[in-house]
């Protein structure tokens, strides 16, 4: 096991490593994690509940349920990334990785918009989207 070469440390807590996570920090974060967990559960229930409201009929137009569900999902994903994955206080290097991924991923999704200029003949979305 590679661990056998790791030097032993007597440091009881994490502050020696300068990663911004001291004992007190962590203790404070723990409460935040619980709150975020609760917020995510609440948003899940809200997403499910709102999916049964016929927004297209209520507001007029198309795909309102889709738009609303995606806004909620993006908010939830943002909470997970920012708080659970510590992106809020993460180093620039990681943000750079993610920016590249986000750029190409956005490109992939923009490709799907091609159905606007070249609709697939006879499909509902060629008229509804």
């Amino acid at each position: 096991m590679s661990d056998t070469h790791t030097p032993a440390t007597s440091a009881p807590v994490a502050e020696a490593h300068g990663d911004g996570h001291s004992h007190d920090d962590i203790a404070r974060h723990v409460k935040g994690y619980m709150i975020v967990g609760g917020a995510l559960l609440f948003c899940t229930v809200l997403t499910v509940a709102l999916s049964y409201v016929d927004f297209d009929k209520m507001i007029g137009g198309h795909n309102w349920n889709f738009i609303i569900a995606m806004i909620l999902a993006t908010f939830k994903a943002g909470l997970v990334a920012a708080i659970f994955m510590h992106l809020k206080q993460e180093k620039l290097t990681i943000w750079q990785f993610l920016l590249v991924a986000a750029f190409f991923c956005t490109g992939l999704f923009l490709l799907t918009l091609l159905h606007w200029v070249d609709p697939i003949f006879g499909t509902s979305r060629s008229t509804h989207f």
Partner: protein
Amino acid sequence: MQIPHEVTARPDTGLYNAKLGIWLFLASEVMLFGGLFSAYVFLRVGSDDGYWPHGLLNVPIGTFNTAVLIASSVTVVMAWASLKMRQWNKYKLYMGLTILAGVLFLFIKLYVEWPAKFVHFGAFIKKDKWTEYEQYLGNKHLADDGRPPRAEITGHLEAVEIAATEDAVKAFAEDHQLEVKPSEGKEGGEHTLIVEAKEEKEGVGPFTAEKLIKLPGVKPLAFEVKLDEVNADPNDPKNDRPTFWQRPLSEKVGRIKFEDISSWSAFAPKHSSYFAVYFTITGLHGAHVLAGVIVFCYFFFFGEKLYRKNPEHMANRVEVGGLFWHFVDLVWIFVFPIFYLL
């Protein structure tokens, strides 16, 4: 050999090695799932009116599984926090709970959700035959209400009507616990038979039906389907949109002529683009959950030695495993609404 920056951060990036590695990996995962999600968008916008199903999945179970994953995201970050605070017993508790949540998620998916799909039956009716099946499809009512039409009749496959001699299906019927009864009519000089399950509750099963109609000398004539409520009472406005609780099967049996069907199958990947992309994405996601559970089991059962030697190194490992786990949760946050709710 001592590898530098296994535990401490590199001064230039501010990251220890494994964290740099996991984020590069997660960036590649964004592309992997991004590709599949964009495939979903293409398939959905390219689907014909009435051919993108809505309401075929079990929403209460999906919601429960979402809650299980969210809870596991909390417990895994708590496991990491416990290690940072050097509370080994608490770490074991939270990591154990995370593993249990992952196993529960997979159990529900593989033993509850998917098997129920594989015994359900759906038949898409040819467009020019929709009017003949109006009593099951209710398309006039939907059109009056400005809603997309129904193209499919779903339910439980009770019986298959075939044209064949009894000898042609006798051995097959015995192997599959099926009962063969003579039917009234005649088709091309051959007797028509009704093939149904011996146990009424079981039904024939779509996969068994596929094998049956491929037997030599067997010509399929019609399916008898115990209808889902949406097809049993298609003009009832409460069936216009799916409901949270899945409605039980109706007692009504519908007869669908084989020649009027454009495609039929279980709710399996080949059923439609919808189920194809559903099984692909949830299958790949499930594989990620399994991978996470395996890694966490290693941390749970074999982590103590490293913890005693270098607790910070152990905490870093759990942080990196946790980052992967949160990403899996994050993917599910999008998977759940697009397949179950929309």
